[in-house]
């Protein structure tokens, strides 16, 4: 079903979405009705109950067809709704999850700030307790789904003296709260259909009930969420790489130069073999990690590996595919250059690959008794 939907509904529109930067609202509504916006979550909250494996399948297929749409849903499920699902109180979950799972409201995840990217502990969004509500002041930058979000999970500093660990709290902020404003969508190299913007918080009052998890332990919640989000991002990059391989296989069969199809040329064959090998390795890694998540096993190291290997594999595969297609690869009429532009961000967002390496090394050495100081 998913494959057919992506091929019949998303793929034909992907070029337009990339060109104009506008999504088709009817399509998003349809996807909401089919349950795309809540695939991994339990059915009692309105999700599909497919778990992490189902979510990885979703991201893989969506990314094959339209990476922009995949990013919207990836940010919505993978980090925004997921943080609520992991650490939210039952009351909070009941209040927000059903609408999020049905796609009636869109979620966003607000962590990055102008001065805090990889150094997530250096966030400066201030939340002060006044009477029965928190007052948020500050700014968030590069937030996916920012312009279209109805609900934003933000990490704010409640106690500056304690720093990030112990002094940061997660809040669920509704977009229609006075004082909250999303900026203009950023003009990016790729992912044109996925709106990204800064978020301004000017004395935004958030009721105490909207604290996600425990006061002071917000950082832990967000790190947990990011860990899980990495697996699905790995799956998304897998989809992009697979699509590049498929396109290349079709092209090398059709294109003849020097009297024969270029499929008969060793240099091309080697490129195809490399692409296929990396894709298979990534596939094994992603779905094993998804299995670990679904079965309650530790997965932080593997999740980092998924994101690291996935983003680099996708970039390499799509680049090779571009080379195989020759000049057609850079033509804006053909889908490959869009994939090339869309894939680059995967090495940067949701924790840059450098951070992933630190995470993986940290886990590896922790198993040997060494606590690294980042």
């Amino acid at each position, binding site marked *: 079903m998913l494959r057919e939907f992506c091929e*019949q509904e998303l793929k*034909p529109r992907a070029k337009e979405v990339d060109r104009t930067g506008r999504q088709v609202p009817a399509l998003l509504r349809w996807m909401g009705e089919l349950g795309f916006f809540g695939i991994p979550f339990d059915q009692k909250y309105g999700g599909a109950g497919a778990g992490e494996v189902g979510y990885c399948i979703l991201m893989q297929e969506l990314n094959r067809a339209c990476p922009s749409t995949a990013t919207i849903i990836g940010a919505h499920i993978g980090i925004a709704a997921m943080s609520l699902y992991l650490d939210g109180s039952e009351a909070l979950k009941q209040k927000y999850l059903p609408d999020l799972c049905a796609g009636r409201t869109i979620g966003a995840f607000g962590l990055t700030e102008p001065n805090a990217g990889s150094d997530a502990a250096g966030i400066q969004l201030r939340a002060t307790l006044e009477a029965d509500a928190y007052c948020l002041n500050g700014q968030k930058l590069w937030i996916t789904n920012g312009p279209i979000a109805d609900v934003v999970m933000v990490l704010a500093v409640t106690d500056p003296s304690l720093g990030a660990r112990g002094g940061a709290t997660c809040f669920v902020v509704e977009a229609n709260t006075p004082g909250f404003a999303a900026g203009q969508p950023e003009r990016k190299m790729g992912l044109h259909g996925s709106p990204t913007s800064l978020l301004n918080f000017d004395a935004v009052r958030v009721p105490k009930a909207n604290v996600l998890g425990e006061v002071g332990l917000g950082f832990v919640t967000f790190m947990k969420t990011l860990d899980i989000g990495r697996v699905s991002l790995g799956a998304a990059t897998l989809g992009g790489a697979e699509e590049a391989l498929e396109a290349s296989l*079709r*092209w090398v*069969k*059709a*294109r*003849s130069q020097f009297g024969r199809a270029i499929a008969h040329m060793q240099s091309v064959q080697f490129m195809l073999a490399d692409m296929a090998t990396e894709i298979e390795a990534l596939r094994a890694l992603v779905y094993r990690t998804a299995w670990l998540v679904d079965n309650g096993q530790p997965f932080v190291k593997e999740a980092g590996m998924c994101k690291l290997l996935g983003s680099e594999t996708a970039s390499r595969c799509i680049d090779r595919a571009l080379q195989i297609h020759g000049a*057609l690869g850079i*033509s804006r*009429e*053909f889908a490959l250059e869009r994939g090339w532009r869309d894939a680059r961000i995967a090495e940067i967002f949701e924790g840059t690959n450098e951070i992933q390496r630190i995470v993986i090394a940290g886990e590896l050495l922790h198993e040997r008794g060494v606590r690294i100081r980042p």
Partner: protein
Amino acid sequence: MDIADLSAGLGEDAEGAAYSDIWVVLPSEAGGALAATALLGEARRWADGLGCYVHAVIRLEALAAQAIALGADRVHVTLDPLGYLTSQQPEFVLLPSNLFFLAAELAQRLGAGLITDTPTVEIDIDTRALRGAHAVYNGDYAQVLEVTTPEKMATVDVRGWPAPYADASRTGEVIVSDRPEVVDAVNWVGPIAYTPPAWRPLQKAHTIVAVGRGVGGEAGVALARKLADALNAEFAGDRSARDSGWIDAAHEVGVTGQEVAPTLYFALGILGDTIHNAAIAGAKRVIAVHPNPDAPIFKVADVAIVGDPAEILKKLLPQL
């Protein structure tokens, strides 16, 4: 000659041979009947080999003489072929492909195996098994099927069969049955205005007529559109057609547009570069018309026509 005499001559027990003879059912429409008469010739050929008779089942008595000339030994005129045949004991029943539903119903009533839409008919002389082929996956290959039930049926695709030899000197029997016509349980109400869901993308079209720069300008495009209407085909084009404004991006055939896999792809004036040709790799049959004999499209076309598309269309369209 009476069947009983022949059987006696062959030393057979006329009663014991419960099923025998080849029966051919001919459709009622005049045009259809003419095409299907080729079946009589085929039946005649096999009957001579097997040593049995050919029966023709028709609706119009006027065709009886022609049926006999074409090879039938006995002609049965009836308005209810289904009921009539069920009361006989035919061994082989051959029908043209357009009598598919009649064949299926008859097969069920007789408990016979039925091979549909076979282009050839073979009867094994020794085992008396009926063999035919049924094309699957849109013609990718054909399954060779054999019927071994006592009664055997096949609907035959007679398109392209040569007209059988008509021997006016042949004689045969004409039997008119007074069985009444069976009233259909389905009532024809009348035309209704119904728009089918118009969601079918180009990829799913069965026939596509595509134009390129060599089609001959606006005049050529107009002719091509008429051809598309006549063939009930989708109208498409390659990149130059889109640049010229004759088609929109959704109907562009190419790696940068849509990849198509129709049963018949008609390329008019398309030069055929890799970007276009790669997208029609799945087409079952490609007919290409282009004035340039070196056009790369001819390397992927089953039928290559070197000529001016507009002129050829002008001659072709009146005949369609």
